[in-house]
């Protein structure tokens, strides 16, 4: 704990760029990985294997993957309640994520976080926090930490259209602007916050317009196009690393499923809208682009098959894993384990 030098606790390795070589196939793979993970997650939730609520990312894959592919693996990333896709996009291993969904001790959070908190610090994912908007100040803070430590990292925050109405958004963006922090604020505007359409929660159409209030440059990007997202984020990352300060990006996207399952009555009749968006499915669109670019269908199909196996492997791992012991409930409140109350310790020991 002593020492007078800055000692970043996390991510001491990978300080140079480690973006995969064949980016296009990797982007495809990660999007498919998210889609497959979500498909399985929904199925096992419906079967009663996953406790708690489930908010899926299906339909928004291009945003998560396009953004994360533009980051270094040691860059910081903060997500929200709808964040199965974010750590996967950032390169997280699937086994600990799936085990977390089942509340197992091998989960990325030892089973203590669950679906709304699939944070994987080993890939720079610092927190998938389920209080709407609450990740934004944290992401600004990680950017401040990066700046103070001069480690050249940037911090990217995913949040929804609904979150942009929280005070935390305002305060986090303003701080980042005043302190010229290396931060990218990426709003995934999927048209709704639970049942409330964007038009019901703000009198503007584009959340990107909010950048002006802080002197933060902003842009709108097609959230279904993984290349477009990557390009926009890469530009923002370059500016951030060069000391140019934060950027606000708005990705226009869509979630196919209801807001969540097991979180109240959230079924909403969105009419034919869903089908319109499905025509611009990010994976289908990207697949077409890759085929057009000369990639063989067999290559893509093979990736899909590999990913399916990967997800099945993760599921098997999760199922085989043990639940945490009761003692675990008292760990990680503080760095030192809490004393166990007398009435419980008898049962445990």
């Amino acid at each position, binding site marked *: 704990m002593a020492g007078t030098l800055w000692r970043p606790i996390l991510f001491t390795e990978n300080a140079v760029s480690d973006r995969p070589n064949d980016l296009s196939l990797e982007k495809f793979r990660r999007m498919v990985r998210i889609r497959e993970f979500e498909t399985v997650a929904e199925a096992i939730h419906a079967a009663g294997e996953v406790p708690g609520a489930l908010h899926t990312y299906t339909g928004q894959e291009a945003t998560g993957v396009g953004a994360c592919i533009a980051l270094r693996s040691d860059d910081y990333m903060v997500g929200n309640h709808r964040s199965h896709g974010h750590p996967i996009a950032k390169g997280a291993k699937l086994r600990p994520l799936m085990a*977390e969904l089942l*509340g197992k001790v091998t*989960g990325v959070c030892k089973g203590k976080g*669950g679906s709304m908190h699939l944070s994987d610090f080993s890939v720079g994912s610092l927190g998938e926090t389920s209080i709407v908007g609450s990740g934004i100040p944290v992401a600004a803070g990680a950017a401040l930490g990066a700046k103070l430590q001069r480690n050249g990292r940037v911090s990217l925050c995913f949040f929804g259209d609904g979150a942009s109405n929280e*005070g935390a958004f305002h305060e986090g963006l303003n701080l980042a602007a005043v302190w010229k922090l290396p931060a990218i604020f990426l709003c995934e505007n999927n048209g709704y916050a639970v049942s409330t359409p964007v038009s019901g*929660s703000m009198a503007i159409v584009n959340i990107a317009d909010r950048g002006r209030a802080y002197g933060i440059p902003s842009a709108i990007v097609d959230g279904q196009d993984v290349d477009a997202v990557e390009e926009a984020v890469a530009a923002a990352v370059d500016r951030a690393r060069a000391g140019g300060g934060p950027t606000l990006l708005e990705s226009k996207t869509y979630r196919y499923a209801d807001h969540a399952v097991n979180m109240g*009555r959230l079924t909403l009749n969105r009419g034919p809208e869903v089908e319109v968006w499905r025509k611009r499915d990010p994976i289908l669109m990207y697949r077409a682009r890759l085929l057009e670019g000369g990639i063989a269908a067999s290559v893509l199909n093979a990736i899909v098959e590999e990913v399916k196996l990967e997800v099945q492997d993760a599921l098997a791992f999760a199922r085989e894993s043990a639940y945490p012991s009761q003692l675990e409930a008292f760990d990680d409140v503080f760095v030192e384990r809490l004393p166990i109350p007398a009435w419980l310790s008898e049962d445990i020991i």
Partner: protein
Amino acid sequence: MARATYLEAIRQAQMEEMQRDSRVFIMGEDIICNVFGTTTGFVDMFGAERVLDTPISENGFIGASAGAAMVGARPIVDVTISSFLYPAMDQIISIIAKSRYIYGGQARLPLVIRCCLFYGNSNAAQHSDRPYSMFMNVPGLKIIVPSDPVDMKGMLKVAIRDDDPVLCFEDSTCWSSKADLPTDPDFLIPLGKGDVKREGTDVSVIAVAGAVPLALKAAQKLAGLGISAEIIDPRSLVPLDRDLILKSVRKTGRAITVDPAHQTCSAASEISAMIAEFAFDALRGPVLRVATADTHLPFSPAIEKSLYPSVDRIVTAACRLVGVEHFDSAQGTV
């Protein structure tokens, strides 16, 4: 009288009061879509002006409820889950609790803030809060924690009619409990009056919110062991029916406080302290607390449930107090 759930009781209370008084309106996130089922059909009944979906900005709309109340409206604010009160603490404490006082009585804040206690079901630490004791430390807020449909209906109606701000904490573990609900539109239960949910002579169990049903089950078991437990439900924490609690403890000479919240600085601790201060002479043993362990609530169903008060823990505490050997634990599990 018609059989109805706790959630339905909330709906009826709101509906009846909105019918009765056009100054009452309701707002919150996704209340038109009716997330937990307490506003079914309200937009059709009362129009979009009195049933307002809000942006996700708790501090903003809870604060707006204060402003609207100050000028004569009577807002009900549905905050869905109690964890979402934290972003709004400033408006709740600095504005809602204090405005009447700080302006020397010029302001009146007839508003109700409702939210549920969403614990025990793998919602993880950020969604499992039971923060009523925090608000008990702040003067100026009335606080109700009804534990059954009848109390809920009668007290929520009174809360809506009250001219002071009232926080209503709705225990999600009680959501589906059923009872015969009075249909009299003036069926009212005053705030500040506790209820003896079961009479007894050996030990007083003062239980809060979702702990009341547990205490009642424990009383049944204890009866089998020859112990007569009196179950007291304060129903409102501010004002608190001290007299009822102290009277019971003076009768039985023994007290256990039960609270689904974290133990430290809980409502249970407050009630225990009050008993230790004002009924000490009557006490025949320590004042025991059965509350949630002071750790966060984990997601994993394997380790969440055992952290809360349980029928067993109440039974064990009562046996210890009354000096009865603990009943066979093999039989004892519920």
